[in-house]
């Protein structure tokens, strides 16, 4: 009977179909990831994670990235979503701006050709636009960045609070931990961001005040020029008067 059982097992194994799937990575040049730079690759799995030293990056399915530096300090996001979980002094380039953050989390979302969204969660994030101007995105805020406009300036939106509800979907898709961990982290963020609207009001106020101050300064400069012109005119008149009448 044992022999029969062995035989049946052998037959069953003999009938089994074995499939070997080809490698699922897509890169250019072929199989360059981790070997050569620059290396462009597309994430074809559910998510992609990279960890080297204290750098932790995650990208969603369909994201296209270019590794530009051997020490993993420079990356370019062509399209898709990139979550820099911890990327101190790492540069994330896009067609419109370069993001550089301290340790902490931030997101880069290049969902459409013309706009890229930068979301700062817990990092100190500074964006350098194509026109070389810089913008700091505070924690809990996001900004969209577009192309160069007819004034040779980079188009970008107002720095505004992150809509947590919208953000959760993208975050959950890339989150590596369990559901309970995720819920607890979300709760933490929710508590931290409770006064964001108030903060955004302060930011807008500061921007408005800065603009008003700039306008005041301009006005003051104009007044100063006028005053100097008036003084000069007065001096010339006096000189003329002196020459004509005091002789």
């Amino acid at each position: 009977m044992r022999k029969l059982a062995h035989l049946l097992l052998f037959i069953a194994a003999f009938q089994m179909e074995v499939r070997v799937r080809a490698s699922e990575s897509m890169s250019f040049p072929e199989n360059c990831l981790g070997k050569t730079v620059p290396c462009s690759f597309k994430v074809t799995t559910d998510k992609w994670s990279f960890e080297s030293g204290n750098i932790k990056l995650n990208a969603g399915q369909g994201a296209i990235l270019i590794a530009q530096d051997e020490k993993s300090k420079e990356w370019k996001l062509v399209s898709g979503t990139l979550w820099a979980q911890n990327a101190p002094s790492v540069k994330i380039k896009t067609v419109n701006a370069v993001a550089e953050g301290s340790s902490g989390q931030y997101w880069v979302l290049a969902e459409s050709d013309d706009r890229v969204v930068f979301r700062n969660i817990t990092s100190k994030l500074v964006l350098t636009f194509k026109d070389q101007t810089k913008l700091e995105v505070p924690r809990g805020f996001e900004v969209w960045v577009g192309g160069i406009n007819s004034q040779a300036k980079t188009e970008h939106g107002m720095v505004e609070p992150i809509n947590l509800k919208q953000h959760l979907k993208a975050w959950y898709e890339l989150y590596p931990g369990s559901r309970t961990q995720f819920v607890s982290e979300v709760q933490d963020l929710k508590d931290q961001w409770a006064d964001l609207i108030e903060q955004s009001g302060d930011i807008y106020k500061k921007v408005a005040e800065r603009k008003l101050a700039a306008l005041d300064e301009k006005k003051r400069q104009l007044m100063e020029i006028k005053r100097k012109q008036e003084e000069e005119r007065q001096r010339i008149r006096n000189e003329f008067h002196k020459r004509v009448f005091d002789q």
Partner: protein
Amino acid sequence: MGFGCDFGLVLFLILRSSQFFHGIADKQPMKRVSNSLFVIVCLSITVGLLWGYNEFTNYFNQGKEYQVQVHQLREQIEKEEFKNTLLQNQLTDFKQSVAAVLPPNSEIRNDVASYEMKNFASALRVPASEAQLDLSGIIFEKGKKLFKEQKYDKSIKEFRRILDEYPLSRFKVESHFFMAEAFFLQKDYKSSLDLIDQMLQQYPDNDLTGFVMLRMGQISELNNRLEEASEVYKTVQTHFKNEQLRAQAHKLSEGVQVE
């Protein structure tokens, strides 16, 4: 291929079984011989069934080769798309770099020598926050025309377009109003009430909100909620200053009292 393998396997089993049978025939009693025969028959049936199953699945999987080909072609297309995206991105990056270096459009002189440069800058740059082309007026007129022709379904679609595509349009309030009216005239009171609610929240002081509130009262009347209807008419009379609206509300309120 499957058939060949299975056939070989059957032969192998028969040969092994016959060897076994010959080896024990003269030594073992008849009972063991019949047991062996039973085992061979069972094995043959099992192998036969497996072979039959294989043939069956092969018959229904004849398109497999084509499926493999399609899969390979898809992979090839994906690779091509990936390379195209990379090139496109490189080109956009380069365009942006050039656009950043060129002077602002306003500073490029308007003479023949700078003509090419001006065209070049315009082609590379996005318009500086230029307002979106507002077609809401045309859509609104179309919706109104359809409403007058009593084609309420179509008119609702046009007004909905205004709300979705032009959220800052000056025709937004009127679009809300006409949609609420169209739903009311179609006797879709629930949708009408939803829109009236939206109007009450978004434009509480607008006269048109007062007019749709009269519809609200009428819906309450239709549902035999006379007190509620009367309350709505009173609210319109006290909250709005438009004489025509107040007169209508008064008239309707009297109607409720008569009943």
